[in-house]
C-alpha cells in the first residue's frame, strides 16, 4: 500500500496543478454558487496526493517533472523538494477544512443567488491551482504567470465580498499586486537578457560565477534584477511597509476568503522570496539579508501594535497577519543550523505552516462570531463564551499558536528561531521574537477576556434573538484547523523539519 502510494508520487506534481484547474473550470461551468461538493472531494484527493508527495520526497529526495519532456533550460521543470512538498501539504491541508467550512458558511445564504458564495468555488480552485503551480515551478517566468494567477484569483475573491469597501480593497490589492508582479517581470527580463535562461537550476551557477568575477557588468544587472524581483515579491507578501493593502483586503473579505488569503496566499510570494534568496540570487543578495530582517522586525512590532488598537475583529486578525509574516523574514541572516540542528528555512517553513493553520482557524472563528452576532467590533465579542464555546475555544487555540505558546507549532517554530538567533549571536532578533509573542498575547487576550464576560440577562436574551445558526460543520472545521496548528508542535515538527532539511541532515 505504502509503496504504491510512493510510486504514484511523481504523478502528484502535475496532478496537483491539473486537478484544481479542472475542477475550477468545471465549477465555473456549473455556475453561481455551485461546485462545493466537487471542490471538497477534489481537495481531499489533493491532500492525499500532497501526503504521497511529501512521503516520497522524504524517502527519496526531490522529485522532478519536465513539462513537455524538454527539460530546462528550453522547457519548464517542475521540482518538488522538501520545502515545496511542505508548502503543498500546507495548502491542501488548509484548503480542505476551509472548503468544508465555506460550504457551511455560504450555504445558509442560499436564498441569495448573488451572495458572496456565488463565485467562490471556481476562484478558489484557480487560486489553489496557482499556488500549487507556484510551489512546484522552477522557472522564473513560469513563476510570473503563477503569481498573476494567484494574484488575480485573490483579487476576485476579495471583490466577491460585494460591498463598496470590498471593491475598494480589491482594487488597492490589485494595484499592489500588479506593481509587484511588474517589478518581478522586469527582473526576469533582465536576468534573461544577462544570462539567456529563466530556469533557476541553469541560472544558479551562471549568477554565482558572474558575481564571483569582480567588476563583471552582468553582476550589476543581475543585482538590479534581483532587487526588482525581491521588491516586487515583498510588495505581494505585504512585508512592512508594503503591507498597506493587506488589512482592508483580508479584513474585509468574507471569512473563508480571508482565511484562504491570510493562511496561504501571502505565503506563496514569501516562499518565492526565500526560494530565490537562498537559491539562485544568494550570491547577490546575501549581504543584504539584514534588510528584510529589519523590515520583518518592524512588521512584527507595527502589525501587533495595529492589531492591539484595531476596533474591528477581522481587522485585528488581519493586522496579526501583518505581524506574523514578519517572523518569516527574520531567519534570512540565520543561514545554517542552531543548537537543535534545524536549518533556517526549515524553521521558517514550520512557522509558515503553524501560522497558516492557526490563521485560517482564527479567520474562520472570527467569521462565525461575526455571523452569529451580526456585528464586527471587537467589543461585540463580549459574552461569546456563553453562546459559541467551541468557536471561542477555536479562537483561543489558534491564538495559542500565534502567541507562540506551547505546545503549538508556533511555539516550536519560535523556540527554534530564538535558538538559532542566539546560536548566531543575533540577540536583538531574539528580543524581537519574544516581544512579538507578548504583543500577540495582548491582542489575542483582548478578545478572549471580553469573551468570558457575563452579559446582563436581558442582553443575552436580545442576542439570542438575533443569533443566526452557524452550521456545526463550519464550527468543527475551524476547530480542526486550530487543533492541527497546536498538534503540529507536538507531532509535526520532527517530520516537517526532516522533510525540509532532508533526513539525517543537520545533526548538532
Amino acid at each position, binding site marked *: 500500500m505504502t509503496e504504491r502510494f510512493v510510486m504514484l508520487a511523481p504523478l502528484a506534481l*502535475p496532478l496537483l496543478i491539473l486537478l484544481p484547474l479542472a475542477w475550477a473550470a468545471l465549477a465555473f461551468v456549473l455556475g453561481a454558487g455551485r461546485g462545493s461538493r466537487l471542490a471538497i472531494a477534489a481537495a481531499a484527493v489533493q491532500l492525499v496526493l500532497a501526503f504521497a508527495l511529501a512521503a516520497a520526497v522524504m524517502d527519496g529526495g526531490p522529485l522532478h517533472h519536465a513539462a513537455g519532456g524538454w527539460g530546462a533550460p528550453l522547457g519548464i521543470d517542475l521540482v518538488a523538494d522538501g520545502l515545496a512538498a511542505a508548502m503543498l501539504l500546507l495548502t491542501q491541508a488548509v484548503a480542505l477544512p476551509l472548503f468544508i467550512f465555506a460550504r457551511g458558511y455560504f450555504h445558509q445564504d442560499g436564498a441569495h443567488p448573488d451572495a458572496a458564495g456565488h463565485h467562490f468555488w471556481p476562484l478558489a480552485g484557480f487560486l489553489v491551482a496557482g499556488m500549487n503551480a507556484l510551489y512546484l515551478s522552477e522557472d522564473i517566468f513560469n513563476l510570473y504567470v503563477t503569481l498573476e494567477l494567484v494574484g*488575480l484569483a485573490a483579487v476576485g475573491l476579495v*471583490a466577491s465580498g460585494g460591498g463598496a469597501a470590498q471593491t475598494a480593497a480589491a482594487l488597492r490589492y490589485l494595484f499592489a499586486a500588479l506593481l509587484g508582479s511588474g517589478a518581478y517581470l522586469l527582473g526576469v527580463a533582465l536576468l534573461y537578457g544577462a544570462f539567456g535562461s529563466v530556469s533557476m537550476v541553469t541560472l544558479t551557477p551562471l549568477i554565482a560565477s558572474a558575481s564571483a568575477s569582480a567588476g563583471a*557588468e552582468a553582476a550589476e544587472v543581475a543585482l538590479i534584477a534581483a532587487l526588482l524581483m525581491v521588491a516586487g515579491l515583498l510588495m505581494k507578501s505585504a512585508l512592512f511597509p508594503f503591507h498597506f493593502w493587506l488589512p482592508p483586503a483580508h479584513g474585509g473579505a468574507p471569512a473563508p476568503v480571508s482565511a484562504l488569503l491570510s493562511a496561504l496566499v501571502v505565503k506563496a510570494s514569501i516562499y518565492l522570496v526565500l526560494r530565490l534568496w537562498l537559491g539562485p540570487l544568494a550570491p547577490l543578495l546575501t549581504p543584504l539579508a539584514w534588510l528584510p530582517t529589519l523590515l520583518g522586525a518592524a512588521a512584527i512590532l507595527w502589525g501587533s501594535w495595529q492589531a492591539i488598537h484595531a476596533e474591528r475583529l477581522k481587522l485585528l486578525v488581519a493586522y496579526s497577519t501583518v505581524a506574523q509574516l514578519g517572523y518569516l523574514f527574520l531567519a534570512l541572516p540565520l543561514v545554517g543550523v542552531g543548537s537543535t540542528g534545524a536549518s533556517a528555512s526549515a524553521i521558517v517553513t514550520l512557522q509558515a505552516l503553524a501560522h497558516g493553520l492557526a490563521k485560517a482557524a482564527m479567520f474562520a472563528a472570527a467569521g462565525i462570531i461575526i455571523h452569529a452576532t451580526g456585528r464586527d467590533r471587537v467589543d461585540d465579542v463580549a459574552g461569546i463564551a456563553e453562546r459559541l464555546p467551541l468557536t471561542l475555544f477555536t479562537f483561543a487555540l489558534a491564538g495559542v499558536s500565534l502567541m507562540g505558546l506551547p505546545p503549538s507549532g508556533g511555539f516550536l517554530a519560535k523556540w527554534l528561531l530564538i535558538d538559532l538567533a542566539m546560536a548566531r549571536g543575533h540577540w536583538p532578533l531574539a528580543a524581537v521574537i519574544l516581544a512579538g509573542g507578548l504583543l500577540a498575547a495582548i491582542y489575542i487576550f483582548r478578545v478572549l477576556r471580553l469573551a468570558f464576560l457575563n452579559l446582563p440577562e436581558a442582553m443575552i436574551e436580545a442576542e439570542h434573538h438575533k443569533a443566526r445558526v452557524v452550521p456545526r460543520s463550519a464550527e468543527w472545521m475551524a476547530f480542526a484547523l486550530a487543533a492541527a496548528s497546536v498538534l503540529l508542535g507536538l507531532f509535526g515538527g520532527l517530520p516537517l523539519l526532516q522533510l525540509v532539511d532532508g533526513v539525517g541532515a543537520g545533526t548538532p
Partner: protein
Amino acid sequence: MKRLAVLTAAAAFAALLIGALLDLPAATLDLRPLLAEAMPVSGVAHPVTAVLLNTRGYDTLLEIAVLLVALLGVVVASARADVTGDPGRTLAPPVATSADPMVSALARLVTPLAVIFAIYVLWAGAHRPGGAFQAAAILAAALVLLHFARIVPACAAPSRGLRIAAVAGFAIFLAIAALPLAGGALLQYPPAAAGLLILAIESGLTVSLALVLAGLFLLLADDPGGRR
C-alpha cells in the same frame, strides 16, 4: 513632496539600470540553437508557436487560466454593481434603439471577413506569425463591433452555454496536457501527433479566448449611448 520623491526614485532607477545595460555583455546562454534542434519534433514550423504551445506550453496553459480568472473577476464585479439595488442597471434591457446604420453595415461586412481572417491566422500560426491568440483577438474585436452594431447585446452574466464555450478551449488544452501523463510528462506530445494536437488546442483556444476576451468587454459594457 511625495511626487517629487517618486519621480526622483524612478529617474534614478532608470538611469542606474540603463547605465548597467549599456555595458551588459552578451547573454551567457543562447536558447536559439536549442530551440532550432527541437523544432523538427515540435509539430509546428513557426518557432514562436513551438515555444508557446510546445516547449513552454505549460506557461500558456496557466495563462489561459489567468484569463478565465479575470473573466470570473469581471463576472463578480458586474454581478451586483450596486449593492443598494437597482437591478435594471446591470441586466441590460433588450436593445431598443437601432444602431448607426453605417456601423451596422460595417459590422455585417466585417464579421465574415474577420472569421475567415481569424481562421487563416490560426492556421498560419503553425508556419508563420499568427496563432490562437491573435485569431481570438480578431474574433473578439468582431464581437465587440457586433455589439456596437446592436447585434450582440451586453450581458450581466454569461449563460451556461457561453460558459461551456468559454471553458471548452481550456478543457481541451487541459485534457491534452494530462493525457501524456499515462506514460510520460505533462504536455509531452508524441512527436508524430504533435502538430495535430497543437492544432486541436489552438482551435479550441481560438473560440474560447475570443469569447473570454469579448466577455471582458461585453460583461461590462453599457449599451452604446448611455445606461438604460
